């Protein structure tokens, strides 16, 4: 079998190191140095709301610093993650003007920082119509993330695809996240549910609900009913009941082909590496093959999300990313 040579490059999102960042183990310079020492890259992705102290704005000083680090370590800015905090004021939600300003300032900053892709959190037609002239002027693509439980063909994403068709701009695209296309629930997720008190029978029920296409809230309600019927307090699960369904999806990876021409960036999500070098619950060789054969030529950003389950210090996320990139390289 001949292998299509991949045109994409690898990279990492600093979100992978969220726990260490929150704890102050690293500042931006020392974190990037560690990434460099581990031979991870060349793409680097950041989230404005995580990395930038003056969020949603960005100071010239910060931009200068960022560009200096990229130069020093030889990194390429890959994608800039923005958020839309429409509910920051509890008295009233943002109006369209405020939403526009809030996202615009992040897009402008991202472009100045050298990013060619800006991740957007809202793909409403009116907001995109206002943002597009700036994206065109700055030559940046806007990418909406497709994350579990969504997939390329779920109703929510189909609506955005229709909006994109109407607007007809080549700058509008998607950011597939491999959480959508897992072949089973992750080991760390199942362990977390066991730790919260679910027995084998209850775990089987969770797996059954995980495989269903029902909306997340319906699956959560079904799980709550089930647990109550067995006199297990659902509150014991905390947020993990919801996370079981919106952090682990079960869509076929082949569906990414349906939007391949609109893929602008990728999150190579993973939670845990197996001792044999494979990723738990996600078929990496297949994902790499799909995007290589699809001709995708952007960055694939490693996104380790084990920090949602692990205690900081138990697992070295830099080492996890190194091993995950070795796996992808083998199949590129």
């Amino acid at each position, binding site marked *: 079998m001949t292998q299509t040579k991949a045109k994409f490059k690898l990279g990492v999102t600093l*979100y992978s190191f*969220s*726990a260490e*960042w*929150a*704890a*102050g183990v690293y*500042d931006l310079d020392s974190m990037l140095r560690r990434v460099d020492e581990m031979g991870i890259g060349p793409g680097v992705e950041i*989230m404005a*709301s*995580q990395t930038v*102290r*003056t*969020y949603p704005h960005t100071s010239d000083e910060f931009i200068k610093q960022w560009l200096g680090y990229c130069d020093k370590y030889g990194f390429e800015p890959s994608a800039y993650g923005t*958020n*839309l*905090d*429409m*509910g*920051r*004021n*509890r008295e009233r*939600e943002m109006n369209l003007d405020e939403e526009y300003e809030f996202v615009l300032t992040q897009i402008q900053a991202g472009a100045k920082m050298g990013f060619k892709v800006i991740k957007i*959190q809202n793909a409403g037609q009116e907001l995109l119509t206002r943002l597009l002239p700036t994206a065109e002027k700055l030559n940046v693509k806007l990418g909406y993330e497709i994350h579990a439980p969504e997939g390329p063909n779920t109703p929510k994403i189909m609506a955005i695809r229709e909006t994109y068709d109407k607007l007809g701009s080549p700058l509008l695209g998607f950011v597939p996240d491999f959480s959508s296309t897992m072949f089973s629930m992750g080991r760390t997720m199942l362990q977390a549910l066991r730790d919260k008190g679910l027995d084998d029978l209850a775990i089987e029920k969770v797996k059954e609900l995980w495989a269903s296409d029902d909306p997340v809230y319906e699956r959560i309600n079904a799980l709550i009913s089930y647990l109550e019927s067995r006199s297990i307090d659902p509150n014991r699960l*905390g*947020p993990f009941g919801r996370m079981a369904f919106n952090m682990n999806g079960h869509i076929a990876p082949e569906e990414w082909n349906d939007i391949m021409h609109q893929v602008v960036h990728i999150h190579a999500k993973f939670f845990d590496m197996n001792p044999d070098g494979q990723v738990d619950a996600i078929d990496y060789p297949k994902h790499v093959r799909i995007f290589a054969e699809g001709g995708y030529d952007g960055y694939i950003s490693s996104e380790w999300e084990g*920090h*949602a*389950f*692990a*205690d*900081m210090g138990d697992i070295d996320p830099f080492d996890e990313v190194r091993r995950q990139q070795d796996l992808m390289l083998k199949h590129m």
Partner: protein
Amino acid sequence: MATHDTVINKQSLSATDNGLSLALTVPWYRSLWVSSVSTVTVAIDGKEVPQDKLRFRINGKSFKMEDVPKQWEELWFMQDRAHLDMDLGAAGEVGADHEVTFHTELRLPYMQIKPGFYLPNIVHQVVHLKVQAKS
């Protein structure tokens, strides 16, 4: 403790002139507006500290608890600690051990479920901490 429920660590409790102060890490994977903090309750050795004896201190400012949800322009940067200052009527004793029961509810301002409703994050911790010197 993972990114969505890490808020206190072993060094978090320190003495002040009129009580104790608890250093808090944002229990989420990004910075949040101070207005995202819906409620905070704390009990020391099982005794709840009244809300009017608490202040939420961040970015060089100190807020009454009732004013915390109004601070929508004040960012709680992910690498900064917010301080929950507790007026206990007497200086905190460095080296003393206390059981701290901490509960907070957040409203994630970018995760809208429907207009007016946002995904919450609820963190409840009961920890035994040794009082550190004044920070």
